[in-house]
């Protein structure tokens, strides 16, 4: 009965308009619709990496609802614009007024750090499809999960690839001093140093557009590889300015924040050619062969007339976790959370199974390379070879 209290007004980001409410609060009768939230930056400057997982999650839920199940799922969107303080208010709204039973997200690590304690106290399970900060798993949270490995896995994974497959001896590591880029770059630095690679540092401010002071340092250092920890909006222009300055032979590496076509647009296809991007995510690029992933890619394209981009598969899998729980008849937050500790299914991105601290068991990092202006999958970082 609580379900109808929210009414139309509750959808934070609002593609869903429940109209008069899906159920007519039938007293003690079993609910026929449950609400699952999706929280992330849907309209802000980082929306580019939140829309694909949103679409992935929506796709999973729509497909589930299309099977006419006994309990339908309604996805309520909460547009946090990556503002952690406002995300808390939205989470409280989701808990108190909308009565969600589970949350997909929050998308970023900063907002997760503030929203997760609230969900913890309210005993609402969450699965994030994109928050990769390593410290999140160290809080002893019981209701928090993520469906991809963290930066402490990603950083060393990429570093191993730089020192191994790419055989670099002298690496220039740049970060963007963001909550995401700095720890990732630090993890790469530490692992490279452990492997005996020479590491030089600098940082940049992603709000700027002239990176000449960094670029001149790189040119003076003559490295054979460059790693940038930061988002594609800065990675593109940085790569372009590096190549323009004559830093042509050094291989350019980056992490998941740069896995976007924006990297190619910002740098120009010629400059971006051969750039390597690591990601704990599994992107359904057009060249995949796996049947299930292919079907996902086709469905996704049919629904959103775009190829699945970063974290789309993870968003799909995160939603699937809850769908599995609801299929098993678990419709309350507590029951769903208990069920999550036992899930073990083959998702689109990976085998989905959680550790006690909420981390996913599978720890694969994938390497992608820009070829002919497109993002292509090289393979798992531990196995991939440079052609």
């Amino acid at each position, binding site marked *: 009965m609580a379900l109808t209290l929210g009414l139309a*007004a*509750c959808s*934070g*980001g*609002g593609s869903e308009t429940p109209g008069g409410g899906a159920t007519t609060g039938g007293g003690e009768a079993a609910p026929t619709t449950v609400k699952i939230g999706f929280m992330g930056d849907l*309209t802000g400057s980082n929306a580019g990496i939140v829309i694909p997982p949103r679409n992935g999650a929506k796709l999973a839920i729509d497909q589930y609802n299309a099977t006419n199940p006994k309990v339908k799922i309604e996805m309520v969107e909460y*547009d946090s614009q990556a503002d*952690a*303080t*406002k995300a*808390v*208010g*939205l*989470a*409280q*709204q989701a*808990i*108190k*007024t909308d009565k969600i039973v589970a949350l997909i997200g929050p998308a970023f690590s*900063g907002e997760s*750090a*503030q929203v997760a*304690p*609230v969900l*913890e*106290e*309210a005993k609402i399970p969450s699965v994030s499809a994109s928050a990769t*900060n390593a*410290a999140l798993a160290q*809080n002893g949270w019981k209701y928090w999960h993520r469906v991809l490995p963290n930066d402490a896995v990603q950083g060393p994974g990429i570093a191993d690839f730089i020192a191994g497959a790419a055989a670099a001896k002298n690496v220039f590591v740049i970060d963007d*001093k*963001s*909550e995401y*880029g*700095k*720890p990732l770059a630090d993890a790469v630095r530490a692992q490279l140093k452990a492997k005996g690679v020479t590491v030089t540092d600098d*940082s940049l401010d992603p709000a700027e557009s002239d990176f000449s002071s960094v670029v001149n340092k790189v040119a003076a250092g003559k490295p054979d590889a460059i790693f940038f920890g930061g988002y594609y909006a800065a990675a593109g222009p940085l790569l372009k300015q590096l190549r323009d300055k004559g830093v042509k032979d050094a291989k350019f590496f980056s992490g998941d924040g740069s896995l976007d076509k924006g990297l190619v647009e910002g740098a120009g296809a010629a400059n971006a050619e051969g750039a390597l991007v690591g990601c704990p995510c599994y992107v359904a690029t057009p060249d995949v062969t796996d049947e299930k992933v292919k079907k996902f890619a086709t469905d996704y394209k049919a629904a959103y007339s775009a190829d699945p981009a970063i974290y789309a598969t993870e968003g799909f899998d995160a939603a699937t976790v809850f769908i599995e729980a609801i299929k098993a008849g678990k419709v309350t937050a507590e029951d769903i959370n208990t069920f999550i500790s036992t899930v073990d299914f083959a998702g689109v991105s990976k085998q989905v199974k959680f550790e006690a601290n909420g981390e996913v068991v599978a720890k694969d990092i994938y390497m992608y390379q820009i070829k002919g202006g497109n993002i292509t999958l090289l393979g798992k970082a531990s196995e991939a070879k440079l052609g």
Partner: protein
Amino acid sequence: MNQMNALSRFRSSWSHFSDGVRDRWAAAPGWQRWAVYILLIIGALLLPSESLAPIMSPYSDWASVLFFPIGTFVVLAIGLNVVVGQAGLLDLGFVAFYAVGGYAMGLLGTRLGWNFWEILVVGILICALSGVVLGAPTLRLRGDYLAIVTLGFGEIIRITARNTDEIGGPNGIRGIPHPPSIEGFELFGIQVFKYGVLDPRPYYYMLVALAVIVIILVKRWEKSRVGRAWAAIREDEDAAEVMGVPTFRFKMLAFAIGASIGGAMGVVWAAKVISINPNDFLFLLSATILAAVVMGGAGNLPGVMLGAFIVAWLPERFRGLQEYRMLIFGAVLVALMIFKPEGLLPSRQRKAELKGGTGGMGSLGADVPGPETKADVIEGADK
């Protein structure tokens, strides 16, 4: 001017209304005023009611929104009003002190394990001190020079926090302790002193208490010798100096008081949100608080609080407009300034000056050497 008639009629009827209220207020006996004060406080305490939520904030949790941004902005605006509205110093980096307070709470709470109340006291002192330290080299500058330098200091504080790994760097500080709770103290079904994660209302009550204390103190200062000195500095710094007002010392005092209020809010805020990072202290926040002060009516406390409420509440209320809400917010800001340039509830004194054509708030920044109160002169030329 015909098409402006409706607008100017509305404008003047608004002025008459607010003037009438104010006259009545000035004439009211003491007990009536106290009754109103008490009613206002009770009203503030009842605000987070569930019945208001669907009207006031349909998209986000109303009690949470009341704490941040609404309540937080109100207290910050009261603090900035001391600097801008009363002493007439244009400060574009007020967020710096809020950040110092937040980091004081974070660092002392997580590293030294201090209790919230201890940190609140020490944090206020640290912020007052930082106000003096920042003020010492800058307060000799006047007007717009002060504006750009304070803006610079705000950015320096934020970037230094971001670049210093010892205080968390870009990750900021996590795991900040909540204030100690008093369990079992229940009023109307609310655990008013239980500072947990889920219920924002106890924090909001604490914030109301903070705001009441701050308002009482600020009011007392305003009516004292200090307030008169500030007014003198604001209107004409040189004349004030000649009349024997130690202007530098009083400017410093305004800076320190504003800083303490901003810092106290920073401490309370950090204790609620548990984790802070440098991006919580962007320039946009300074600009927004300044907009609140000016839009409400610099120098007049009820006006400033109204301005802060509007600036904080509008974007939350109109979340439904999704990505268009900031676009509309910008347009509303311009429209309100055109409609009431002296603020929604301007200070009486200011208004009188404006009518007399002596420059209103013109002394803000007009004290840069050179032709004074240019805007008004040009205005005069216009007719």
